[in-house]
């Protein structure tokens, strides 16, 4: 979006140059009538230049957006092809290693071959995640009105086994406004936030609270119309604040909290940003973390009706005033 700005500043530049020309020292040498004519002439020339520049800029913008389009498509093809072509030999490696294990081998050989199989599985997961990440935000299915309650109910069913194993609970703690987006992306966001809340959590009962706030103060900033996902997990250290959203960044040792690839939160961030939003969080070690983020709401949604929230709608307003 840098082009319109530079175009505007260019126009401003010409106007200033024009003003200098018109109001310049020539005035003393020329009669008033002559000056008027010169003024009109200059203004006319300015307008001509402006038109020419506009035309050039429009052509430039068209060319650039075409180029961007092409490069996006190229990137998409690249990620797709690279991922598939990378996967095939990997599966070949794993299958051959498996065939090897069907032979009589020593325990030491077995242990090493099994590790190779495990690592190729991991590599394949990384490639899948990379492909998914590269496609997120560039390919969108049709946007439609989405009842988040239904999405969450679906996720509860999908995650049934995990929730049971982890003694996890997903609670909706406020009314939820109707969304307007690609439902697959909504699922991506909440699935990975819930998984994140369950995995990085030592609590006996792992509680994930989901809701919506009209206004909330997070790290000194007032956020309006944001969803939140709150957990009672291990918390995120301040120094890792920026790292958590980086793809494949894991903040714990390999086997400490399961074997995720560390891509989940990067998916979430990418989706939120694809809708022009920003994700942020506040966290306390051993207490839990709350993620806040906006998502596109349906136009005539229940967002206008008061959101049932047990806490601080009034306080939020006061704080906002205090800040602005």
């Amino acid at each position, binding site marked *: 979006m840098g082009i319109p700005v530079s175009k505007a500043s260019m126009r401003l530049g010409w106007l200033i140059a024009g003003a200098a020309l018109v109001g310049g020292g020539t005035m003393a040498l020329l009669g008033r009538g002559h000056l008027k004519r010169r003024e009109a002439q200059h203004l006319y020339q300015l307008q001509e230049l402006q038109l020419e520049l506009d035309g050039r800029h429009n052509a430039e913008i068209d060319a650039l957006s075409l180029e961007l389009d092409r490069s996006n498509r190229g990137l998409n093809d690249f990620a*797709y092809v690279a991922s*598939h*072509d990378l*996967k*095939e030999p990997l*599966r*070949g490696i*794993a*299958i*051959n290693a*498996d*065939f090897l294990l*069907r032979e009589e081998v020593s325990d030491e050989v077995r242990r090493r071959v099994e590790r190779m*199989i495990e690592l*190729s*599985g991991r590599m*394949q997961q990384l490639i*899948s995640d990379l*492909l998914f990440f590269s*496609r997120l935000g560039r*390919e969108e299915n049709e946007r439609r009105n989405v009842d988040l309650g239904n999405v969450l109910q679906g996720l509860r069913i999908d995650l049934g086994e995990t929730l049971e194993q982890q003694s996890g609970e997903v609670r909706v703690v406020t009314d939820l406004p109707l969304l307007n987006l690609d439902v*697959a992306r909504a699922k991506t966001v909440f699935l990975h936030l819930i998984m994140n809340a369950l995995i990085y959590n030592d609590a006996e009962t792992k509680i994930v609270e989901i809701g919506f706030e009209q206004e909330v103060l997070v790290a000194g900033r007032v956020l309006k119309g944001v969803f939140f996902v709150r957990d009672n997990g291990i918390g995120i250290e301040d120094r890792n604040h920026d790292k958590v959203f980086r793809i494949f960044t894991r903040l714990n040792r390999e086997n400490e909290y399961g074997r995720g690839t560390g891509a989940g939160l990067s998916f979430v961030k990418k989706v939120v940003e694809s809708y022009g939003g920003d994700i942020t969080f506040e966290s306390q070690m051993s207490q839990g973390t709350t993620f806040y983020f906006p998502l596109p709401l349906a136009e005539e949604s229940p967002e206008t009706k008061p959101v049932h929230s047990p806490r601080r709608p009034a306080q939020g307003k006061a704080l906002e005033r205090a800040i602005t």
Partner: protein
Amino acid sequence: MNTISNILIVEDAADDYEACVTALTHDHRLSIPIVRCETGDDALNYLGGKGAYSTDPPDLPSLILLDLNLPGTDGREVLSQVKADSKLKMIPVVVMTSSRDQSDIDACYRQGANSYVVKPMNLSGFLEAIARLRDYWFQIVLLPAAK
């Protein structure tokens, strides 16, 4: 009663083909001949009784296991040609691929694929998946009469 002719596996990767064959035959419950085509063109020739197969057109397979990523004419093209052919379209096609991509899945079903299976990452996964596929296609469902 339908007579089962053979299974056509369209697969260029030797490892995947070997895994498929091992999976289909390892418990000796399948005595159906397995035919392999390594490229999409080879598969289309086989199915159409063209090219190298024109002098002695083979029986049409009872089931096609189709890889999507093939050299030259790829699996998508094979699928669309099979499903556009009034005679061939009766043959169930099971797409087997490494792609989990929803757009690939949708595109294949749109073209008329009968199943879409993501290739398991390891041999035991292969054995299980293929054994189930085999039981499903040759024991549970009834297939059209072989021509």
